[in-house]
């Protein structure tokens, strides 16, 4: 079974060529790597590649088959799946509606749009106060505000739907 790893829109096939103790030989796309891999803590690996030392922490995400990989300099969010099963971005782009959810519980400070407003991707729609900070919640797409589910001053729970935005084609 072919296995793919996907980082954003970029995906590659990964194959194990050989494993001997800590030495792992693997191919990704058409490139081959010989790695010296040691698990130093749960989910934490020390990887030596041609002498270069990498520390990597790998955390299983709540989303199935997704892994957060933290390296010394960066964070990746990588999906691992058999070829063909990856959820493409394409599909999601076909959705006509997007929702603005409350990422954490908080209080709605202000709503910066009214139904029917044309909004741009990244435009602030709701200001939510949480953890003593004001947080701007933005439209994920270019579209039209189709419904507003909350009022100003409302206290909302995590993942409450606040606003619907309908995509314009």
């Amino acid at each position, binding site marked *: 079974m072919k*296995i793919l*790893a996907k*980082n954003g829109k*970029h995906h*590659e096939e*990964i194959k*194990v060529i050989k*494993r001997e*103790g*800590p030495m*792992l030989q*693997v191919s*990704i*796309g058409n*490139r081959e*790597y010989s*790695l010296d*891999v*040691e*698990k*130093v*803590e*749960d*989910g*934490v*690996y020390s*990887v030596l*590649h041609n002498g270069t030392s*990498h520390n*990597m*922490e*790998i*955390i*299983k995400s709540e989303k199935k*088959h997704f*892994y*957060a*990989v*933290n*390296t*010394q*300099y*960066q*964070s*990746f969010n*990588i999906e*691992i799946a058999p070829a063909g099963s990856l959820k493409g971005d394409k599909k999601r782009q076909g959705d006509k509606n997007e929702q603005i959810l409350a*990422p*954490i*519980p*908080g209080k709605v400070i202000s709503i910066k749009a009214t139904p029917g407003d044309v909004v741009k991707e990244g435009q602030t729609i709701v200001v939510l106060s*949480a*953890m*003593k*900070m*004001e*947080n*701007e*919640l*933005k439209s994920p797409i270019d579209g039209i505000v189709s419904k507003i589910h909350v009022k100003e001053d409302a206290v909302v729970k995590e993942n409450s739907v606040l606003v619907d935005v309908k995509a314009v084609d």
Partner: protein
Amino acid sequence: MIRKILVANRGEIAVRIIRSCRESGIKSVAIYSQPDRTSMHVRYADEAWPVGPGPSGQSYLNIEKILETARKSGADAIHPGYGFLSENAEFARQVREAGLIFIGPDAEAINAMGDKMKARELMIKAGVPVVPGSGRLTDDESQNLKIATDIGFPVMIKASAGGGGKGMRLVEKPEELNSSIRRAKSEALNAFGDDSVYMEKYLKSPHHIEVQILGDTHGNIVHLFERECSVQRRHQKIVEETPSPFIPEKIRKKMTDRAVAAAASVNYTGAGTVEFLVDADMNFYFLEMNTRLQVEHPITERTTGIDLVKAQIKIANGEPLPWKQKEIGKSGHAIECRIYAEDPERNFMPGAGTVLHITEPLGLGVRTDGYIYEGYEITVHYDPLISKLIVWAQSREEAVQRMKRALYEYKITGVKTNIQFLERIMNTPDFVEGKYDTHFIANNEEFLMKGENCNQSCEDLAMIMAFVEHQSHVDKRLRFNNGQSGKSNWKEYGRLHRFNPF
């Protein structure tokens, strides 16, 4: 003599205060809200008592309950930390009425500095420069327009009782003036029950520079130099440093001198901070005085060597300051980065969650003041500040290098943090050169939000290791166990060196 201090706070500052208590042989009493039962200040204090549920209004702001806890635990003093009740004159008054020592200034000084218009008047009297502005604005629209024109647009409308942006309005054009005043008044009335507003000149590219003050109960007031706090995002300080890379020695002398005068004008006792705005031409103006310990106090502790919490306690004990102004020196350069549980990639959304791993930066010139631990669950109830990283070095250049090294070492996972964003600040040319004002973040937004360069092999390795972790559950070939390297293999144990040569 203070023997037992109740710390009316939580988080890193509660831990930090308890540390100085412990070093001074003073017992510490923590208070906690229900969700803070497992918080570090509870675990670290000698005693800990519950004061109510999560919302601060019912716990950390519950004066009655806090005073009751002080009585019950036999505390003889209360340290308010910063935030919460630290600048609440009523609390200071009630603590003293209860026969306890309030580790902070008099209620009168808190009141005087808490009312912005009153503070302005006091400063003018004390010869401390203030931003050109008005007294209390009336409803006389033509008079208001005249004042604004004299000051020069743009102007800021501010609420006298205000703070944190409420009742504040920036007015760029004359035709917007009076409607803005009306809106500010109504906002101020709603927020503070007082519709007094005044007008100030709006400074375009100011520096936010503050001076640390200590005053004792014997009339001595000294300063501990300045802190440069211009790296701010939406009025939230992120990085502070001392000395300021901006002001020359001559201005430093003038500012610290005026800061002492400002504190003297209210017979200030304890630790306090006089905040100034400094314009591009080195004109400085009194902004406000914070009548408490400041979040960023550790950088001053590092360059002056003075433990500010111990100094506060000694002052509260009635002891005179142990140094004269000329005996207070500073050396080297210190920088603080505030570590927030927030996600810079999602518009700095603060995040709650369980901390999985922490690697603290250690070694030469590094201090961290934090309160989270592995397994700790950050809650949504409070400020997302989880730690402060302070470095010191002989020069500013070395301090920036050291901060980069420390940020590189600092790993917190399980919750999103701004650590990588701070690393980018340290790499921003304007910051590296020390040429920045309060618009730094906005001016460098593109650079700051850009991800690190990742070459193909770095992405490849991340994908491979995600694959390894994923497959390890089903494919024996990819199972790696802790400690497989054979270091426990006694068989290879051979000749040992007999003596430790060090």
